[in-house]
């Protein structure tokens, strides 16, 4: 790739950077408990929680750093942080 003068960069190109690998703990979502309130989504610093057709939330593990905010803030205790065995 050739350098553009001054180092101009295309938008949203960090998506190539799979920060999911940084994770130690992983959030596990329990649809049975979920109230579809969207709080997890609002607070996720990685903005990596999407909504499916049934309004359930799903973290994108490619990017989720496992911070645990969603689990902490979920009013329904629908998210559990687990130590992730990645090997």
């Amino acid at each position, binding site marked *: 790739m050739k350098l553009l003068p*001054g180092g101009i960069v295309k938008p949203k190109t960090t998506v190539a950077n799979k920060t999911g690998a940084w994770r130690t703990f992983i959030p596990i979502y329990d649809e049975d408990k979920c109230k579809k309130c969207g709080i997890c989504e609002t607070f996720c610093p990685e903005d990596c929680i999407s909504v499916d057709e049934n309004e359930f939330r799903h973290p994108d593990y490619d990017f989720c750093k496992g911070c645990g905010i969603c689990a902490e803030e979920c009013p329904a205790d629908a998210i559990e942080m687990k130590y992730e065995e990645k090997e």
Partner: protein
Amino acid sequence: MMNEMQILEGSKAVALTVRSCRVDVISAYPITPQTHIVEDLAQMVADGETDAEYIKVESEFSALSALVGASAAGARTYSSTTSQGLALMFEVLFNASGMRLPIVMTTVNRSLSAPLSIWNDQQDSISVRDAGWIQLYAENNQETSDLLPIAYKVAEDKDILLPAMCCMDGFVLTHTFEPVEIPEQSLVDEFLPSYQPKYVLDPKNPLTFGAYADPSIYMEFRYQQHDAMLKAYEKFEEVAKEFEKVFGRKYDLVEEYKIEDAEIVLISMGSIVGTMKDAVDELRKGGEKVGILKIISYRPFPAEKIYEAIKDAKVVVVLEKDVSVGMEGGLLSDIKSFMYNREDRPPIVGFSVGLGGRDVTIGDIKGLVSKVKRAEAEEFEFLNLRREVL
């Protein structure tokens, strides 16, 4: 020709030319002796004589920073400063060049504090010679004007994209009334089309400007910038030719004066060259083979042209209004360094002259030449030092 000319203050000539370059955004902070330029521009804005906006910043740091933003947003931009103001901009100078923004600035030349001095020398611009700015030096107020559209055209070229400063000696040029042919609007429009950068800050194409570079890539950015400056050498020549076609006035990176048969070649830049020309004429009358190489473009550095001009001289004398404390002048170092590995290289000596506004007369130049002829000049020295106070 004479009747197309106006007689006016150098600062006014610059301000009128800035207007005719159809600058979009001006941002500047007042400082002696640059003030008249920006005051004239402010008055034009107040009178609706230009479409430019003038940002009345609170410091020179912000003056140039605002232009970084404006230029990235696609505006043609202008500033002017001097001395302490230029020094205060130092960090932004490197930044603007690294970001490859073709900002143009009139650098009025004045000495640096301490001690504080509002008078002319060229320490300010020469001390920022590393920063990646094109630097052009004017001998008279025709040049302070003409070099502006030339600077814009070189700077904005897609292969260059470097900021440029047009340097003019403080007071000596800014405050001097003399006849100048102000580039006419229609001709300027012909010569300098509006600025159409390829990449701008635009929500429709949301690019990121100024990403940082880790060790895997920083060096390449620096090289690119370095290379653009090297390319600006030929670009300047090309643009100067176009300028001549439109305006009839001829410029080059350097100007030779009575140099063909010269045994002693004096090199300098800026307004002092005028005085030197008169001195050379007088010396020639006395049979001395003396000539002058005037540097107009200090960056890009006109290396090959200097070589051609001085290779046959018996001795070369560099006169400059700066000193790298404990060393010598910057121009002297650049010239000697560039010539170092050449076979046919004349001896070169250097003088710091006119620091802090010390006047330089025709007699001073003649005295200096005679000292050099008598082989009494040191490799580097200060001209006209008052030894009695030291």
